[in-house]
């Protein structure tokens, strides 16, 4: 009956959830005899304090934006795509095949072709569970989870038996040709100033040819594609007829049928888009960072995407913000392991708490707030 004001729903609920997660993380740290203040400082410093840390935070955030958008699009059609992990890995296969196919003359061409490859492979991997859901009623949550395992197994087989160059020991493809190397954000005019080297006093270091930047910052040009994807997904969902049909179908399948919206068609198209977005993530990690296809290339980003979408309220702008937060947690957490005696596993605990509070216990916060607001409205009335 009582509703929350929109600003409280959009801003206050996630903020309180985050504070709760931070509080409980601090409790865990105290319980294992560590200082939460120190941990917080190390995380902030490691993830945001330097151009190097920034570069990693944005790199992770890029991946999470794609997987978060993938979950978001499916969610609006009432489909819970847990298969981002597998779709991203198979997308990585698409990237590898494209990049290794030609001695690419320029990275722009390679990027265009690899994007198509990544999206097509990711979409194809999502198409099978989508078909099973649409035509045979096999629940998409179950099938997409199973397809994650199948994807991992397929990749291992291909890396070990098919794609591994003769004589190479580790299960990976050959390194991609030089022409397929994506520019890092620190190479891009206009953005490179974000990644300046600074001395201990915080002043930029001057080199022979002007200001010096970090080389090979992992955040790469894919971030720009991710930002564009956020905008395109927003357009798709709220400005196009297809998005209208997706949202209507997601709200009520019976009503969609009344309106003549074909359930099979919408399920298929939505999952193709969702899988394509998850696949696109591999541009960032496979092409932009590793420059070859490795096992488990997605490193859990597919699952983080679920949390990102949940926290971002399934809105592209929210996904963007949540992806940066999770990028921060990922990078900051890694720094914890490097610079403190806090075990690196703790970052998983912190992420788990953030997911728990922003995702699973979100309704609890909402309920408490609604209760608090009902007092306020009662007094006004």
């Amino acid at each position: 009956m009582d509703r929350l004001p929109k600003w409280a729903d959009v801003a206050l609920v996630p903020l309180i959830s985050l504070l709760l997660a931070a509080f409980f993380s601090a409790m865990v740290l105290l319980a294992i005899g560590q200082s939460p203040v120190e941990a917080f400082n190390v995380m902030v410093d490691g993830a945001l304090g330097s151009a190097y840390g920034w570069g990693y935070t944005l790199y992770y955030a890029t991946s999470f934006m794609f997987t978060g958008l993938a979950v978001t699009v499916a969610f609006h059609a009432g489909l819970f795509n847990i298969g981002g992990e597998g779709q991203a890995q198979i997308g990585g296969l698409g990237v590898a095949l494209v990049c290794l196919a030609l001695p690419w003359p320029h990275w722009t061409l390679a990027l265009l072709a690899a994007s198509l490859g990544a999206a097509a492979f990711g979409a194809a991997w999502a198409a099978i569970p989508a078909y099973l859901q649409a035509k045979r009623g096999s629940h998409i949550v179950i099938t997409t989870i199973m397809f994650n395992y199948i994807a991992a197994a397929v990749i291992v087989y291909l890396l070990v038996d098919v794609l591994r160059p003769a004589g190479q020991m580790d299960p990976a493809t050959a390194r991609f040709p030089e022409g397929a190397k994506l520019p890092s954000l620190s190479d891009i005019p206009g953005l490179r100033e974000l990644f300046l080297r600074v001395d201990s006093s915080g002043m930029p270091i001057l080199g022979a040819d002007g200001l010096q930047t970090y080389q090979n910052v992992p955040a790469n040009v894919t971030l720009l594609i991710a930002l564009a994807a956020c905008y395109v997904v927003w357009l798709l969902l709220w400005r196009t007829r297809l998005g209208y049909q997706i949202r209507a179908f997601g709200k009520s399948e019976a009503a969609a049928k009344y309106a003549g919206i074909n359930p099979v068609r919408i399920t298929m198209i939505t999952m193709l888009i969702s899988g394509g977005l998850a696949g696109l993530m591999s541009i960032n990690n496979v092409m932009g960072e590793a420059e070859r296809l490795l096992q488990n290339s997605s490193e859990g980003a597919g699952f983080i995407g679920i949390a990102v979408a949940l926290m971002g309220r399934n809105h592209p702008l929210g996904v963007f913000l949540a992806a940066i937060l999770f990028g921060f947690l990922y990078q900051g957490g890694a720094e914890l392991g490097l610079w403190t005696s806090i075990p690196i596993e703790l970052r998983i605990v912190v992420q788990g708490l953030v997911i728990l509070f922003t995702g699973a216990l979100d309704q609890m916060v909402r309920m408490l707030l609604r209760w608090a607001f009902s007092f306020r409205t009662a007094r006004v009335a």
Partner: protein
Amino acid sequence: MVSGNDMGRQATAALPDAGAPLAIELRGISKAFGPVQANKDISIQVKRGSIHGIIGENGAGKSTLMSILYGFYKADAGEILIGGKLTAIPDSQSAIRAGIGMVFQHFKLVQNFTVLENVILGAEDGGLLRPSLAKARRVLADLSREYGLDVNPDALIEDLSVGHQQRVEILKALYRQADILILDEPTGVLTPAEADHLFRILKGLKDQGKTIILITHKLREIMEITDTVSVMRRGQMTATVKTAETSPEQLAELMVGRKVLLQVEKRAATPGKVVLEVENLSVRDENKVERLKGVSLTIRAGEILGIAGVAGNGQSELLEVLGGIARGTGTIRLNGVELDLTGKHSDGQSRRAQGIAHVPEDRQHLGMIMDFAAWENVAFGYHHAPEYQKNALFMDNDALRADTEKKMARFDVRPPNPLLAAKNFSGGNQQKIIVAREIERNPDLLLIGQPTRGVDIGAIEFIHKQIVALRDAGKAILLVSVELDEIMSLSDRIAVMFDGQIMGIRDPATTDERDLGLMMAGVAGKAA
């Protein structure tokens, strides 16, 4: 009476015969949900051994009031007196102890339990069932004798008709020694004959000294059976009057707050060429059960064909197959062109393109997306319409909003805000949005199911006028309703459905409720 802060209303609220014992007295009951005042300073007195009606539009606060009386909600202010004693009712157990029994609109029965098992459910005497069942069997036999409430105690609920299930609900209340029986819209699911039987039972209960509170929106029932009636409007009790001293017109005016036309004004139909021809149409549901069994009918231009029948006798399936939601076998011709019943062109989009508009029976589940804004719902089903497209990719949301504003003005939708989510409109205004969307497409055939279910009286009048206007514009209309009054007053011809078949077709001028009621119960054959 008590605390006289509103003398005008108090005066009308108090009219018991001096000295007559009161079964229930409510004094100044108020209840708010957030900013919404659902009940505001309500006072009623109900005499023992009387039938008291409570009438009001949807959202007037009837159900809230009864929920307070039954312990589901706690009133913010006010007192409840049962038999003259101040009584607190914090939960439904206390209500039962105080002698209040409730028969809900949607029965609360366990389908695969027997009547006896349902009756003792929650009122078992101990850990072992056998003694309770034996006792219940004796009590039930007595009750049946006393009140004419015949039900086989060993029958499973799922095997009983709706009318019999309702009797079980009444028996449940009586078994718990209820002296005051509250019935919430009891006739919504009954045939006219079953409703008559229910009224006979209620009169019997009254003669035995029971007190009955009847909540309904049907004026006819109020006039037929109640002794006194209270009218609610917007959370307030606007009047309490003796039924013998009032009229349906006066009650309707009290409910709505203005004069209302109860009878639909229409001139005689001038049917033109045949628009819809249905031959031997059959539909099976997901479980392969045949729900529509070889139905044939025709509708001409400028004619309203009303389908009467108790809910669940194939009317929904008929609408769904015509509207492109369900698939079927047989032949449907629209303006002489045969429609696709199973293939690619059997969906809602194809039907709309062929000139069929559909106001579905279940407006909240089929007709709109409740979370969508009004303007998004105006495009629902017509999202391919060229005037709503900006270009090949994008929809023209501005044009849609402008169109919604126009429709809202023409159909008097309140509040006229295209950005408001559908769920925040009242039932009547939701229905106006749907009717506006469908009628303004100027269809050759309008399918309209339960046009006024959950719709307030003021909106009913408006929607009926729109339907008649569409007929007078030379369109064919298929009207499905479980409200016999609505069928009788709107239709030019009436077809009665029972068990997936058409039992007969009647002229509303020459038929009556008894005749239709018999066919609705499957009695009269097709010979007529």
